[in-house]
């Protein structure tokens, strides 16, 4: 994809009338708009090209499609709305003067990302599992990968784009704000917008953390009742995880929850699903020295 700049769409004489800061402000607003349009294109492609084809070819059933594509349909109208509003704000000479108000009323809608982002871990899991076991699906995805429309990116990459997009809003708003004069109406409105969007992202982040924790907890398998502890079910977050070797050289996948550390051995269960078999007794956090 080519990067487009705002000034490329204008006549030279109009640009010359603007100072550097004004020009930068227009570029920053245009970038928000342009990247919103790119995102809409990607979202449409995910729905129309990937999901619809997979449905028609019966590569996956409806339940599986729902898990893999999550709330993607709910994202589209929200981003279309912002793109349309940004176009409406544009003056006849191509400049955009005010964006603060429309951002402030628009940002709360991003809360739908809680649903989208908390589902991503399940989406990735099912997509990997189905790709492994379903040859026709694998073939289809490979064809997509080698077609120009995918820009050589896999489906997971597209499904993950909204997440990485969400966290970029504060950066884009901050850039616009930086080029906004202090006496401009947008100056304070943009400050509020930055705070507001960060609040929304914090909320999404918190819930995504909870979802990941629950996902791992559901994958734990116990060999002995003594291993079961309410500290696991009471935990909300995974602070850190990774593979450690014990003294005998056995690789253990260790999860450090907020209340307990659990040593596990990864095992592949039926349907290529990975489970974590709890190894020895979980260690309560208050017994750990960190």
């Amino acid at each position, binding site marked *: 994809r080519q990067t487009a700049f705002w000034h490329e769409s204008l006549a030279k004489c109009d640009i010359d009338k603007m100072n550097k800061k004004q020009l930068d402000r227009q570029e920053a607003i245009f970038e928000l708009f342009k990247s919103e349009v790119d995102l809409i294109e990607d979202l449409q492609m995910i729905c129309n090209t990937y999901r619809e084809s997979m449905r028609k070819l019966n590569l996956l059933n409806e339940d599986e499609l729902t898990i893999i594509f999550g709330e993607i349909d709910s994202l589209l109208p929200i981003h279309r709305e912002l793109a349309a509003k940004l176009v409406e704000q544009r003056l006849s000479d191509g400049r955009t003067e005010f964006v603060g108000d429309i951002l402030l009323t628009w940002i709360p809608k991003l809360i739908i990302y809680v649903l989208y982002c908390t589902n991503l871990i399940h989406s990735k899991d099912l997509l990997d599992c189905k790709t492994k076991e379903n040859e026709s699906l694998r073939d289809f995805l490979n064809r997509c990968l080698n077609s120009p429309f995918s820009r050589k990116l896999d489906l997971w990459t597209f499904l993950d784009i909204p997440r990485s997009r969400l966290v*970029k809003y504060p950066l884009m708003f901050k850039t616009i704000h930086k080029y906004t004069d202090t006496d401009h109406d947008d100056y304070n409105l943009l400050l509020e917008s930055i705070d507001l969007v960060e609040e929304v992202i914090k909320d999404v982040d918190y819930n*995504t953390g909870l979802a990941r924790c629950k996902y791992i907890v559901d994958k734990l398998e116990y060999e002995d009742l003594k291993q079961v502890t309410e500290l696991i079910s009471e935990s909300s977050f995974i602070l850190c995880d990774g593979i450690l070797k014990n003294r005998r050289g056995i690789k253990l996948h260790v999860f450090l929850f907020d209340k307990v550390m659990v040593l596990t051995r990864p095992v592949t269960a039926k349907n290529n699903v990975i489970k974590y078999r709890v190894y020895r007794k979980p260690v309560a956090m208050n017994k750990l020295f960190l």
Partner: protein
Amino acid sequence: MASAAATGKTFQFKLVLLGESAVGKSSLVLRFVKGQFYEHQESTIGAAFLTQTINLDDMVIKFEIWDTAGQERFHSLAPMYYRGAQAAIVVYDITNKESFNRAKVWIEELQKQASPNIVIALAGNKNDLDTSRTTTYEEGSAFAEENNLLFLETSAKTANNVNEIFMVIAKKLPKVNPTTAGPQRAQGNVDLNPQQNTQSSKGCC
């Protein structure tokens, strides 16, 4: 998934850029991809990723560059799978000591979480601001050597060493599986780097 694409000797690699905010991650990418530096134009932060192709000997190396700007503060919204990345550039600002310390933490995390063969480069950015330097070249270089990292000081502003850092990464990347070495290779399997740590009674962070 490993189908032989008919594009010959083209190698595609996913590269992630990590580092504290404002160290110049996006500027480095922009400089590399566009050959430009906009002092006041932080365009492309909205793009999900950028691609750039370079020629190395008789091979074409295509970098798919993931700029993680904006994700630093949100732990659970960090990329779930930079495990799929074959290369990483960890950036710090030579005029900001804290960003160097943070870079060390990123590297530790990559060594723990990313795939074992990942090629990691450490970039001390903004070396045009030599007079306000707080991290010496030697400090950066010594840390890189200890941890087996590629190391260069760069300046997105003057373009110093920007192409070079991508070039040294390209040289070091294993050239296997033409064109299939894309993100598709990143599986849900946990391919964490085995640690030497045998203490099971201590936390790992």
